[in-house]
């Protein structure tokens, strides 16, 4: 893994959500994405704490967005995946797939 970065489970969820939102993700949309896809609604504060950590690790970068009255005149902070982030995610997935190979635990209990 480049730079030896290791992702926690929640970090991975957040990073994936950022990747899916294609460069325009911010706190609320990241949270909504996780809620929609993973079925859990993390606290916004936790999302931000994680994003800060990911940014420190170099997996995401952020830029300031527009200020809207809906937000009490405060700017959004948009997060985008860095190439390091992308390769970390890929590495993580590959590692998982290698571990899953040949393993059959039956169908997940969650119905599609």
């Amino acid at each position, binding site marked *: 893994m480049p730079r030896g970065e290791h992702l926690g489970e929640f970090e991975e969820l957040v990073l994936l959500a950022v990747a899916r939102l294609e460069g325009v993700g911010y706190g609320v949309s990241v949270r909504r994405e996780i809620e929609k896809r993973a079925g859990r609604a993390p606290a916004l*504060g936790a999302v931000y704490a994680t994003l800060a950590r990911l940014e420190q690790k170099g997996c995401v970068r952020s830029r300031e967005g527009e200020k809207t009255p809906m937000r009490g005149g405060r700017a959004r902070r948009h997060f985008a995946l860095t190439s390091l982030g992308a390769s970390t995610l890929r590495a993580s997935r590959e590692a998982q797939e290698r571990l899953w190979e040949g393993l059959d635990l039956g169908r997940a209990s969650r119905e599609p």
Partner: protein
Amino acid sequence: MTSGRPPRLATWLVSRATPAEDREPLLGDLEEEYQRLLAEEGPASARRFYRLEALRALGPGLTRRLRAGFAADAVPHGPLPGRGGSMLDAVRLDLKLAARTLLRHPRLSATVVLTIAVGVAANTAVFAVVDAVVLRPFPFPEPERLVTVGTVIPKLRQELSFFENLSPAEYLDIARECRTLERVVAWDMGNRQVAHAGAPENLFSSFFWGDAFTTLGMAPALGRGFTADEIRRGEKVAIVSHRYWSTRLGADPGLVGGRILVNGAPYTLVGVMPRNAVLYGTELWLPMEVGPEVFPRQRRQFQVLARIAPGRTLDDVNAELRALTARLAAAHAAQVPEYDGIRFLAHTWNEANVRTLKPAALLLTGASVFVLLLACANVASLLLARAAARGRELAVRSALGAGRGALARQLLCESLLLSLAGGLVGVGLAALAARSLGTALATLPLPITLPGEVALSARALGYALLASLAAGLAFGLVPAISASRRDPSPALRAFAGTTAGAVSRLRAERLLVAVEVAGAAVLLVGCGLLLRSLDQLNHVDPGVAASELVGFRVTLPVERYDAAAILRFFRELEEQSAAVPGAVSATVTDQYPPIGFSRARFRVTGAEPRSDDELPSALLTSVTASYLRTTGVSLRAGRFLSEDDRPGRPFVAVANETAARRYFGGPAAVGKSFEIGSGERARRIEIVGVVSDARNRGLDRPAGPELFYHLHQDQGPANQYFVLVRARVDPLSLVRALRARVAALDPQQPIYAVQTVRQALEAQGLPRRVASSLLLVLTAVALVLAGTGIFAVVSHVAASRTREIGVRMALGATVLQVRGLVVRQALVPAALGAGTGILGAVGLASGIGGLFFGVRPFDPLTLAGAAALLIALAAVASDAPARRAARVDPVAALRVE
């Protein structure tokens, strides 16, 4: 509405907890979601979401901030940031270190916290009471501009009075001529029987001439105030107190606009006052106007209320009043001779009502400050002892590069943490104390009615915070300064115990013993003087059989009783009352000691009125022939009044000894006469007897002159009288039967003001009594603090001298000699402290002499008692450590350390 904006507290919490770089986007996100939910699901759901998210943001946010902080705290005992890091970081680190250190010594910390808690609790509880009773007793807005006008009439020997002190003409003079006052209203007080459904009840009533509601700045809570027309025409409209409305009218708002019966006549109830509207316990508010022609200038039964005009001050008002009284004296001196030298003095309403309570409030506040001081001294000695033990820790830190300032700052942080924790516990204790004090005060007949309950207001909490911060600084400063002065090298080389630091510490500890004893001495002397005063008061002979007498009052409505009917009613009531089982005799009177409303000016027949003399005046009391037999006042000369002193017979009166001595030549008074009233009402009255003095102005003042006449000789008798009944059993046990006798005569007449004469006398001394019980508690606390403080100091000193004691014993010192040595260490500073404290107390006591009665501040008995008690306390507190020191095994002691 608030729903457009997210909850403020939650926003604040988030912004505090979140690191700066995430603050804006996170708050923006939260608000965005909030606005969305607000539109989609409504305000409740949006707020719930926001608050929940705010709470959930605290954990991650604080963790990140702490982690950032810990990075700076990687070497906890290394040099403190202070030059490199920001000041805030340094303080945060100090606090963290302090908290850790304190938690490492839980027993010591708990002792300190508890000690401070006691001090803060005493201060906060006393402040809460003083605030509720003296500083802000009334709920009226802008209390500093609400004034009343008092009078001083030197010619009548009348001291400053705010009560029934102005006549209608004088009120109009003030209202019309004073530009510095506005909204001036006059009011009178009385009693009315009020009924809605059921038996009438006596209500203490105030009659307002003018719009009192705008003056007070307090409108009725329900309904309206009186209109100008209603006041001018004296219409039958009434406003009742919140208490009456809620307890007797079933709190029914629908009754406003309806009828109630006042003295049997129908009145329209136009309003209900707010719960906290307190004006001498007025239950019924009525409009009234009195033409100045009705009452002569000398008939003073009103008081006034006014607001200081905008841009003016109380001094301006008083300057204008001085000019007014000068004009009055010039214009009316012939008819109203007492105008010579009269003074009108405006006071704020608060000041006028609580000024008699101020000395007690001051005394208690001062006493509680002393208790805090003692607590601080105790804590300082504990921390000083520990600073010695920590000498090496501090020396190591200082050697590693911590500056002296940094060390001192850390010690100060510890002190402040301790004092704030103590303050927190203290506030809890104070809340309990204030609640029970409030309950106790509410049941006492204090001179002013408390509008609310005694509770810990924001002001009291602020006071508690100040007290704890001051305490933290006070007891933290000494060890902090001594730490910042310390030279680390000897502490590193040698062990504590025999170094130079130890010597100066010993000196500091002796000083603390002296301070503690001095503080306790001040309280002890104050308390002693007050208790001696109470004792002296208990030994004052009231001049009447106070404990055997019960009094009650009946006010007959003039609408239904003419003069003859009133006299018949009371004659009948007197007979019936005397016949109640257990009663010895009964009398009817319009006042009895210490209650004196009715006083009058008179002229001694044959005496040349000299203009520079005071004008003769006396309490003028109408009684029945059984007054002497009932009250226990005894005849000194001549005869007392009899049933033969009827209308149509010569007017006669009886003087008390003071009146006889002051105005009628003492023993020769019988046969002299005086003239009273003017014009048609003027009459000449002969003195037929002299009776013994009773304490008619309260137990703490000598008897004033008093003249008695038979109420049958009153021209146009009053409609309200007291009945005094002397009992051979507990007088209050007669009340039920007495009530029944009144009801049998007229079921519409309630009795009120039921109390024994002893109770009436004691009610006047109540502030002194309350103050002394509270002071007793504070003094007990102070003595306990001083005792434990001395014990701790002496224990520590003895322990640090173990080696020396061992040497002495090895050289042949006896156990007694060693004990003496240790106890002397405490006794010398204790004696010095006691001396200083007692001298200080005498000085302070002279400053608040008004509270004391029958003792001078330099009361040898009290002072000697206090000194003996304090020395004994010091001896007892230091004896246990002395015994322990004397049990030291010399061999072991020499091996110590």
